[in-house]
C-alpha cells in the first residue's frame, strides 16, 4: 500500500467540542425482556435459595443455567434437576475497573464456577456452570493460581432480600471456611 496519503483526520476531544455542527444526543432504549419458560423457573428457584438445571434426555447432562433445548443434541430438555451449587473454580480474575472503565476503590474477584451436576464427566470441555463474584478469597489466591480448582459453594442473601435474581446469590465462597490471613 503506497503510504503517501492515508485518509483520515485525528481530532482531540477538546478541539472537537469547539467545532460548529457537532451534535449531542441521549438515546432512549427500554425493554421488558421475556424470561420465558426456562429462566422464569430458574429465577423462582433462586428466590427459594435453589439452583435449578434441566436434564437433556439424549446426552443425560443437566444444563445449568437451564434452557428448553440441549444445544448439542437439539432435543427439548425434560426434567428439572436441582444442583447443590457446590463446584470448583475454573478460572478467576481481579477487576480494578467498573463498567465504563472507572477505577474501583475495592477490587472485585470474579470467577467461572464448574458446578457439580449429573451427566458431566469430571474434566469434560463442557460443564454446568455459572459466572459470579467470589468472596472469601484473596488477590494472592487468584494471582498464585491457588483459587483454580478450589471447591466453592454459593453464599445466599437472607430470604427477605431475595427477589428472584442472579444477585440472590451474593457470591461463591470456599467450601471449607479458611481463616483469611
Amino acid at each position, binding site marked *: 500500500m503506497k503510504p503517501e496519503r492515508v485518509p483520515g483526520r485525528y481530532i482531540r476531544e477538546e478541539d472537537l467540542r469547539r467545532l460548529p455542527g457537532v451534535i449531542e444526543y441521549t438515546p432512549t*432504549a*427500554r425493554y*421488558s*425482556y*421475556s*424470561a420465558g419458560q426456562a429462566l422464569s423457573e430458574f429465577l423462582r428457584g433462586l428466590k427459594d435459595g435453589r439452583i435449578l438445571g434441566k436434564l437433556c434426555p439424549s446426552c443425560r447432562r443437566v444444563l445449568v443455567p437451564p434452557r*428448553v433445548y440441549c*444445544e*448439542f443434541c*437439539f432435543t427439548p430438555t425434560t426434567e428439572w434437576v436441582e444442583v447443590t451449587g457446590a463446584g470448583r473454580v475454573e478460572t478467576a480474575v481481579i477487576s480494578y475497573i467498573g463498567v465504563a472503565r472507572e477505577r474501583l476503590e475495592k477490587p472485585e474477584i470474579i470467577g467461572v464456577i464448574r458446578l457439580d451436576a449429573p451427566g458431566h464427566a469430571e474434566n469434560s470441555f463442557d460443564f454446568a456452570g455459572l459466572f459470579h463474584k467470589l468472596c472469601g478469597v484473596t488477590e494472592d489466591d487468584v494471582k498464585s493460581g491457588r483459587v483454580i480448582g478450589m471447591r466453592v459453594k454459593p453464599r445466599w442473601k437472607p430470604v427477605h432480600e431475595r427477589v428472584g435474581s442472579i444477585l440472590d446469590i451474593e457470591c461463591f465462597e470456599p467450601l471449607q471456611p479458611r481463616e483469611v490471613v
Partner: protein
Amino acid sequence: MVGVGWYGFKPTVPELSFREMMFEAAVRAYEDAGVDPRRDVDAFISCQEDFWEGIAISDEFAPEPIGGVLRPTMTITGDGLQCVGQAYMMIKSGAFNVVAVEAHAKPSDIMSPQEIYEFSLDPNIRTLKISNPLFQAGLDAVAYMRRSGASREHLAMVAVKNKVRGLLNSRASHSAKLTLDQVLDSKPVIHPLTRYEIAGFTDVAINVVLASEDVARRLGDKHVWVEGIWWATEVGTGAVEWHEWGRMPSMRLAALGAYKLAGVEDPLRQTDFSEVEDRFSYMELLSLEELGLGGGGAHRMLESGYYNPEGGYPVNPSGGSLSMGVTLEATGLSRLLEVVLQLRGEAGGVQLKDVRRAVVASWRGPPTYTSIVAVVSRD
C-alpha cells in the same frame, strides 16, 4: 425451500423468550423439511438487529435455538428475505447444500419503539425532534398520490381489502371487519394515512430451510423453488433527502434483478399472485407499480377489483402486513411464508385455487430505502 416453521403471529407472545420462540420455529421447520440440523444442515443464517433485540452483538444468541452450535452460523442485519438471498448465493456457489434461515421479532418486549425508530434517523434529522419518526411515509404518500393520481379513497380501499381478507387467515391478528367509510371518516395520524392504514406490530419467529435442487428432490415433493431473488438499496439513511420521493427505485431494481434470474419479462402474465409490502396502505400500490404489476395504474386496477382474491391477479391474499402486523426483520419471511403455504395448498382459509408462481416483495421500512424481491414457484 424444503421446509418452513413458525411460532407466534400474535401481538404478544408472553410465555416464551425470543430464544424459545426461535427453537419452536426451528423444530417445526426441520420437521417439515425432514432434516436433522445437527447432521443435514450445512449453514445457518440469522437476520436480526441489536436495537430490536435489546442486546448488543445479538448474533451471540443465534446458534443455540436453531441447531447451529459449532456449525457455520452467521448474522446479517437485514430483512429475513436478505438472509434467504444469502442462502441462495451460498447454495449456488456449490459450497453449501442445505442452509437454514431464521428471523424473529418480539416487538412486545420493546418498551420504547418510537425512540428506537428515531435512533435509526440521521443524527442531523434527529435534531429537528419530529414527533413521529415515521413521517417519511407521509412525504412519500403525498408525492406518490400527486404523481399517480391515486386518491385517499384508493389508499383506504387497500386497508379495507387487506384487513377484511385477513379475517380468514389464522396468522392475521390485526385483521378487522373494516368499512371504507370508517377509514375515510377517521382523522389521519400521519397525513394522508389514518390509523387503519399503518400496520401494527406482531411477535413471531420464522425458520425456512433451503436446499440445492438434488437434495430438495430427494427430500420429497413439498419443495418450492426460489427462481430468483435480489435486493437493492437506493440511498442510505444518511442521505434520505436524496431519495426519489413518491417512487421506490429500490423495489424496481430488486424486481429487475429477481426477474432476470427467474426469466420473467411480464410478471403480471407470468406469475399468478403476489405478497407485497403494505405496512403503509400507499406502499401496496407503489410497490405494484415498481414491480411491473400495476398495469395502467395500480389504483385503477385496485378499484376494478383486479387485485381481489377472486380477481385477475390477487395481491396480498393473506391480508398483508396490515392484517398480520409488521414483524420487524421477519416481515419479508412472513410474506414468503404466506406464498409457500399458498403454493403448497396449505394456506387454509385464504387458499387460492391452482396457483403455481408468485412474486414476494418486502421493504425494510422507514427510514430505509432497501427492498427485496423474490420469484417463487412450484413444479
